[in-house]
């Protein structure tokens, strides 16, 4: 199972306490260009990840290559993929990382964005990216944590 999620906080309490146990994943991939080049921030983010879970910090464009590599290894029970933004998710999809479901967890508010759920506020560009993904068959799921009701807002 692969959970693909947009969360502007990337790895944080909700991931460690709820999504990792819920999915049973033993791999977490943070696809973020900024973090891929920031070793200190990587250390900070992965400090509290249980030792049984492998974490990776990679450039968005390298995602499909990385997934293939991990799936080749037999012990991949599940993978959580994290993006910090809608454009990053769209970019990964376009560069060959095909996914069927996209969980939109936290996209913080800033002026000019439209609040679509308590934890998600979308800019025009975000909305464009998500619509393009839905046209390609991706189902959107606006859950912050696993036991939130599945809400479709598009």
């Amino acid at each position, binding site marked *: 199972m692969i959970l693909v999620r947009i969360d*502007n*906080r990337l*790895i*944080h*309490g909700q991931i*460690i*306490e709820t999504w990792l146990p819920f999915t049973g994943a033993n791999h977490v991939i943070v696809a973020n260009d900024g973090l891929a080049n920031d070793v*200190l*921030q990587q250390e*900070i*983010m992965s*400090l*509290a*990840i249980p030792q049984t879970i492998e974490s990776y910090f990679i450039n968005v464009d390298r995602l499909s290559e990385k997934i293939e590599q991990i799936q080749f290894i037999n012990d991949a029970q599940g993978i959580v993929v994290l993006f910090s933004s809608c454009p990053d998710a769209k970019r990964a999809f376009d560069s060959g990382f095909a996914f069927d479901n996209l969980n939109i967890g*936290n996209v*913080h*508010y*800033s002026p000019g964005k439209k609040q679509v759920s*308590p*934890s998600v*506020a979308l800019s025009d560009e975000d909305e464009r990216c998500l619509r393009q993904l839905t046209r390609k068959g991706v189902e959107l799921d606006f859950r912050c944590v696993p036991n939130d009701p599945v809400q479709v807002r598009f």
Partner: protein
Amino acid sequence: MAAKCESRDKTFVGVVLVTHGAFGETLLAAAKTVLGPQDNCQAIGVDVNIGVDETMEAIRSAIRSVENGKGVLALTDLFGGSPTTMSLSLMKSENLEVITGVNLPMVVATLQARLLPLNELAEKAKDAGQQGIKVAGAMLRKKTKK
């Protein structure tokens, strides 16, 4: 502001509580109920609806406002949560120690021992936080059985 103060109290370690939501603020208020008014301590709540950069700046300015030259101890809630990771990110630029799992015994002990150097204060805070957790009912039962 310019008034000179001879009190040695001006040199104690600053304390910030960085938590999810209003937890830290309420916890600090509870500690003040126990100890009375306290200087150089602040609580910052992390709100998921506010951007990471903005929140980081709020934490940074809270740290700087309680800094008295002896460093600052950040008490955070969940190891791995964003209040903790954001605080850790500020260790680059601030004289800061970060300790997770904040509870009332930890806050009370910390505020009372702030003349200690930062590293010793952090150890004391950890011990107090851990020792404050007891199955008190069982302790009482054991005592009353004797």
